[in-house]
């Protein structure tokens, strides 16, 4: 683990471009390399907005503050550049791409990650894909299915994890990857994340979640609580357990005071 955090957010203010409503009001966050951080918060606290802003969703505008990753100014980069720089966002609602197989999709993404002028070796790709599917316990026929088209919630999330495994990011942001999953699907996702962090101990993970239950399977080093667009508490895994017992009630006052 390095001394200065690989991922740093300072005083981040962001708003919805269309309506102009500010969602993040000066958010600070630091994640050192190799750590797993969880961000928990009630609905509407800005959790998903944070995930989208990190990945560069065009719907949001950053009005103040900064995001640095590995010494680079993330806010200067397009979403594809952020991906190439090693940031991966696992979507809360993965998008359907009809007619495009997962294999084809991953090949295109892998090619995009190659240095300029280099061609992806298709045999290497095939080997890697099979290897990754084995690691995540995914059936090889899965890769032939069109991306998220007609997938169950669990299959969509599994697809996100497979993509993450293929792209091998340095920072994985998981946006409510646990939402809408039954316990078996949740375990699949958690096992995937654990397998990947084990394989690559320097990967940082930001788990965004409403519930504590994912954290039973993926152990965070640090837990942050986000309320009304700001981190209001940071602590160890015990914070998640407290939240599980007490809910977000103690933060409601804070939330009300902000509005």
């Amino acid at each position, binding site marked *: 683990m390095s001394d200065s955090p690989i991922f740093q957010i300072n005083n981040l203010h962001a708003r919805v471009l269309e309506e102009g409503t500010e969602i993040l009001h000066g958010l600070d966050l630091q994640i050192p390399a190799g750590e797993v951080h969880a961000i928990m918060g009630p609905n509407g606290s800005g959790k998903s907005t944070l995930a989208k802003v990190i*990945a*560069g*969703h*065009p*719907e949001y505008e950053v009005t103040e503050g900064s995001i640095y990753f590995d010494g680079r100014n993330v806010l200067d980069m*397009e*979403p*594809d550049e*952020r*991906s*190439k720089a090693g940031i*991966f*966002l696992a*979507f809360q609602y*993965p*998008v*359907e*791409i*009809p*007619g*495009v197989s997962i294999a*084809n*999709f991953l090949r*295109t*993404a892998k090619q*995009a*990650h190659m240095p300029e002028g280099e061609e992806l070796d298709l045999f290497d790709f095939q080997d890697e894909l099979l290897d990754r599917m084995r690691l995540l316990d995914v059936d090889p026929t899965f890769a032939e299915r*069109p*991306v998220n088209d007609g997938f169950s919630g669990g299959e969509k999330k599994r697809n996100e994890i497979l*993509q993450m495994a293929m*792209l091998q990011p340095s920072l994985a942001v998981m946006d409510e990857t646990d939402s809408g999953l039954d316990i078996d699907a949740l375990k699949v996702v958690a096992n995937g994340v654990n397998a990947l962090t084990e394989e690559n101990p320097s990967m940082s993970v930001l788990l965004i979640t409403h519930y504590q239950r994912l954290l039973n399977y993926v152990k965070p080093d640090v837990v942050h609580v986000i309320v009304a667009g700001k981190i209001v508490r940071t602590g160890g895994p015990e914070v998640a357990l407290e939240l599980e017992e007490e809910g977000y009630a103690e933060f409601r006052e804070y939330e009300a005071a902000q509005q």
Partner: protein
Amino acid sequence: MPQNETIQGLGLDQYKYDFVDEEKHVFRTQPGLSEDVVRQISAQKGEPEWMLQARLKALEIYYSKPMPTWGGNLSDLERVLDEIYFYVRPQDQMEHSWDDVPESIKTTFERLGIPEAEQKILAGVGAQYESEMVYHSLKKEWEDQGVIFDSIEEGLKNHPELFRKYFGTVIPAADNKFAAMNSAVWSGGSFVYIPKGVELKTPLQAYFRINQEKMGQFERTLIIADEGSHAHYIEGCTAPVYSTESFHSGVIEIIVHRNARFRYTTIQNWSNNMYNLVTQRALVHENASMEWLDGNLGSKLTMKYPSCYLVGEGAHGEILSIAYAGDGQHQDTGGKVVHVAPRTTSSIVSKSISRGTGRASYRGLLKVHKGALHARSNVECDALLINDTSRTDTYPYIEIEEQGANVGHEATVSKVGDEQLFYLMSRGMSEAEAMALIVRGFIEPIAKELPMEYAVELNRLIELEMEGSVG
């Protein structure tokens, strides 16, 4: 078919790029259309009298029919037709030099990864001699099976009875104004006969034939698939055809006899000054099956509706089409199926993509005649819009005279969504790559039916097109 092809029958020694004295040797008709022009065409080809008479009759029909007022905008066409040459003798077709080919076209060729020799053919300035070996060995194989695969002129000359028996029977001159025009001035195209029971494993590719003689802008193709035969004919190519001409009007007639199966695949990508008005129709007999696989890219305006007339009991017709309308282009395409006999079945799947100010219209006719008991048909047309300025329209005409016909129609319009783009970009793809992937997925149900090399080329072409769509 590309009309600017290679020179037939000329040895390399006669073949020159520097046409310093070209004017002396060129035979071409006067600009515009007249009886004199038609007579000259027929005389140049040394045709029998009946053909000349058929041409002249067609010319009369052409004059008598008004310009269509439906479909695309043809208001400028009269002027164009007064200026173009309706016939240039193949040996004398105006070769232009490689230097005359616009940079944009050359760049596209390069980026498509087309070898230079092939680039020159496509631009109408060269001949691809390498393919001749392949062609000759295939031709031998076909001849041994009794297959005829000739130019339309050779067909008339060498197989006069067969030719006359079928020519103009599927698409008579009176069918429409442009069919009449083509019937009067046709030049170039293929004549194909597949004997009874012959099944061809290798597709017949017009590509193999194009270095045999030049194809005209008024190509005429006649194909007869005899009983129980099975073949696939491919024409065109996804690379843009560069042409100084601005009008193309082809007629393609296909007769699919009892129990035969025939597939006709064409992918065309015209330069964007081109009016492309094509009539293609198949007559499908008892228990026979016809498939049109039709891809239209480029051109200023394309009006093209491959059709199947299901005249024999149990006949099946299928039309798969892709249209891509780029900036300033109008693709008015679709399909037409006429159910005449009982238990006939058909399916139309049409996919269109509009980018920039491009407009793609689906125009389809599904007709079930009285007596076509238990006819079944399904029409599906899907449009994808790339930009806010892109446009799509659907004109499905359905005429059912027989109760109990089972007819389905489904149309969808979708727009490339911001969420889709963001999702793909968050995986490292540029906006153009993301667009291209979405478009490729959209046309996948049809592209997978294409021979591999065509599908690959089509995908590359879409990638190039999408680069221009961003921003």
